[in-house]
C-alpha cells in the first residue's frame, strides 16, 4: 500500500502484543487515519463513503428482511405484505431496503460522474476504475434480482423481459439462447423456481460486492485519491490526513444524504416504485407499460432504441462495458475537465444524454420517443468512441496550477502546516 510513515503507536500491552503478531491496527491506522487525502477535494469526493454506508444499509436491512420473507411463488407477495403490516418495524426495514437501493444508485451515479469529469480513470488509476465498473455491474445484477423478489406484476414481467434478452443469442447459434433462458428459469417460463434461485443469488451477490469494494479501496490506497486539479500529491502541504479532516467531511455529507434517504423512507416510500408492483404477479396478464426502476431507465432506452433484438442487447451491455475502456479512449494529457475548455461541454452534453435516455426509457417506445432515443443512444456511444479520443488530441488545456497547494492558495500561497504526514513524491 501507499508508502508513508505510520504514526501508529500501540499504547497498551494488548495492542503491542497484537501489533507484533497481526499489525491490523497499524494497517487500519495507516489507511484510514494517516492516509493523505488531497486538501482540495470537494464534496463529490464524499460519495465513496456514502456508497460504503449504503452497502451496509442494504446488507443489514436485507438480512432482516430475509428473516421474514418467503421465496416461493405462493408466499412471496404475501410475506412482503406480512412484513409491511405485522412485523415490528417491518415497514421501516422494507422501505429502507427499497429506497436504499435507489439511494445507492443515486450515489453511484454521482460517483461515476465525478470520475468521468475529473479524469479519475486515467493512469495510474485504470485498475481502480475497472474494479469500479465491475462493482457497478454487480450492483445492477443484485438490484435486478432483488426487484423480482416482491413478486408483484412489475417484478414478474421485468424478470420475463430481461431474462428473455438472452434468447437473442438464438440468432447467432440457433437454440442456444433458448437453452440459456430455460437454464436461468429452471423451467419453460418464469416461475417460483426462478424466484427461489434469484433470492439465493440476491443474498450472495452483496457479499461479492463487499469483496470487490475491498479491492477497490485497496487499489485506491495504492495510487492515491484524485482531486479536482487532477494533480498528484507532491508535498506535505498538498494533503491533509484522512482523519479527522476527510472523515468529518464525509460524515457531514453523509448526514445530509441520510436526510434525503429518510425523507423518502418516511414520506415517499412508494414514490420511486411502480404501483403495478402492488398487484401480485399474474403470468396471464402483462401490464400495459413494463418499465424498470428509474436507475435502469437509460439502458432500457438504449435497448429499445435499436430495432434488432440481438444488437439492442449488445448495445445495452456495451453501454456499460465501454466505461472500462475510457482510460485508453481518452487521449488528453490532462486529467481534470476543469482545465479542458472544450471537453467540459461535451461532458455536460453526455450528462444530458443520460438524463434524456432515462426520461425516454420511461416512455412507451412509439412515435417521436423512438427517434429521440436513437439520437441520444448514438451520442452516448459517440461520446466515448469519437469525442473522447478526438477532443483529447485537438484541444489546448487551460493554464494549470503547479501544485494542489497553489490551486488552493493561489501562486503566492504559503504552505500551511496542518501536520499531514508527508507523502514521498512519486517518480
Amino acid at each position, binding site marked *: 500500500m501507499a508508502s508513508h510513515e505510520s504514526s501508529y503507536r500501540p499504547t497498551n500491552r494488548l495492542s503491542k502484543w497484537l501489533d507484533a503478531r497481526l499489525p491490523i491496527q497499524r494497517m487500519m491506522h495507516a489507511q484510514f487515519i494517516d492516509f493523505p487525502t488531497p486538501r482540495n477535494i470537494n464534496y463529490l469526493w464524499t460519495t465513496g463513503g456514502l456508497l460504503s454506508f449504503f452497502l451496509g444499509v442494504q446488507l443489514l436491512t436485507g438480512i432482516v428482511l430475509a428473516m421474514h420473507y418467503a421465496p416461493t411463488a405462493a408466499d412471496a407477495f404475501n410475506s412482503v405484505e406480512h412484513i409491511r403490516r405485522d412485523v415490528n418495524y417491518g415497514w421501516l*426495514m422494507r422501505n429502507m431496503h427499497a429506497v436504499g437501493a435507489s439511494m445507492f444508485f443515486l450515489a453511484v451515479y454521482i460517483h461515476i460522474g465525478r470520475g468521468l469529469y475529473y479524469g479519475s480513470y486515467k493512469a495510474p488509476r485504470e485498475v481502480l476504475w475497472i474494479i469500479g465498473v465491475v462493482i457497478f455491474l454487480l450492483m445492477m445484477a443484485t438490484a435486478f434480482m432483488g426487484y423480482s423478489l416482491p413478486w408483484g406484476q412489475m417484478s414478474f414481467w421485468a424478470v420475463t423481459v430481461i431474462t428473455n434478452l438472452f434468447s437473442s443469442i438464438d440468432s447467432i447459434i440457433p437454440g442456444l439462447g433458448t437453452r440459456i433462458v430455460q437454464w436461468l428459469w429452471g423451467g419453460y417460463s418464469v416461475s417460483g423456481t426462478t424466484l427461489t434461485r434469484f433470492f439465493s443469488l440476491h443474498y450472495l451477490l452483496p457479499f461479492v460486492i463487499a469483496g470487490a469494494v475491498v479491492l477497490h479501496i485497496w487499489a485506491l490506497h495504492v495510487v492515491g485519491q484524485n482531486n479536482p486539479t487532477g494533480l498528484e500529491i507532491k508535498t506535505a502541504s498538498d494533503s491533509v490526513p484522512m482523519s479527522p479532516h476527510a472523515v468529518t467531511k464525509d460524515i457531514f455529507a453523509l448526514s445530509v444524504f441520510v436526510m434525503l434517504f429518510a425523507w423518502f423512507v418516511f414520506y415517499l416510500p412508494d414514490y420511486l416504485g411502480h404501483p403495478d408492483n402492488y398487484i401480485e404477479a399474474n403470468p396471464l396478464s402483462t401490464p400495459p407499460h413494463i418499465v424498470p426502476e428509474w436507475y435502469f431507465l437509460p439502458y432500457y432506452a438504449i435497448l429499445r432504441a435499436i430495432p434488432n433484438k440481438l444488437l439492442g442487447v449488445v448495445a445495452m451491455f456495451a453501454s456499460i462495458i465501454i466505461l472500462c475502456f475510457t482510460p485508453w479512449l481518452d487521449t488528453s494529457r490532462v486529467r481534470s475537465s476543469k482545465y479542458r475548455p472544450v471537453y467540459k461541454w461535451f461532458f455536460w452534453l453526455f450528462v444530458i444524454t443520460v438524463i434524456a435516455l432515462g426520461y425516454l426509457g420511461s416512455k412507451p417506445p412509439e412515435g417521436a420517443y423512438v427517434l429521440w432515443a436513437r439520437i441520444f443512444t448514438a451520442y452516448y456511444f459517440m461520446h466515448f468512441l469519437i469525442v473522447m479520443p478526438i477532443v483529447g488530441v485537438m484541444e489546448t488545456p487551460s493554464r494549470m496550477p503547479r501544485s494542489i497547494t497553489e490551486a488552493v492558495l493561489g501562486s503566492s500561497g504559503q504552505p500551511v502546516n496542518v501536520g499531514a504526514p508527508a507523502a514521498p513524491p512519486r517518480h
Partner: protein
Amino acid sequence: MASHTEDGSNRRDFIVVAAQAFAGVGTAIALWPFIHQMNPDASTQAAASLEVDLAPVKDGQAITVMWRGKPVFIRNRSKEEVKQALDVKLADLVDISARNDALPEKTPALDANRTKKGKENWLVMVGICTHLGCIPKGQSMSDAKGDYGGWFCPCHGSHYDTSGRIRKGPAPRNLEVPPYEFVSDTKIKIG
C-alpha cells in the same frame, strides 16, 4: 483514538465532541428497530390467546388444542379421576410445586392448585413432557395412560397422574398449567 494533529485541541473542541456524541446516540437508537423486528410480530401476538369452547367435551373426554405452537391438553375428568387426584399426598410427589403459571412457584402441587375453583373437573395443561419435550400419550380413549391413569410419555417412560403430576420416570417436573380463565361457563381463554 488519540489526537495526533499538531493542533491537538481539534478533536476535543466542544462542537466536535457534541456532534460526535449526538450522531453516536442517534446511531445507537437506530439499532432498536433492527433488534425489535425479531420479537413476536402482530399476527403472532394476536394469536397468543385462544378461546376454547368446552361444551362439546363430554365427561371423561379430552381434547388437544394448539396454543402458541404448543399442544394444550384439556380433560373433562370423571369423578373417579378427580378423586384419585385429590387423594394423593404431597409426600408421594416427585415435584411438589403446582407448576401453575397463574400461581407462585412455591404453591404446593395439590390438585386444587392446578384447577379452577368450582371447575375442578377441568384440567388444562401444556402437553409437553418436562423431561425432553415429547408429547405424552393419554388424550385419546385408546391411549396408554400410564401407571397412574393420567398420561404416559413413550419417549423415556414418564408416568403422570390424573392431575398431570409426575409420579414415575425421568421427567423432573409436573406438566405446566398455562394461564387461563373461564370467560363463560363453558368457554375458557388460554393466555
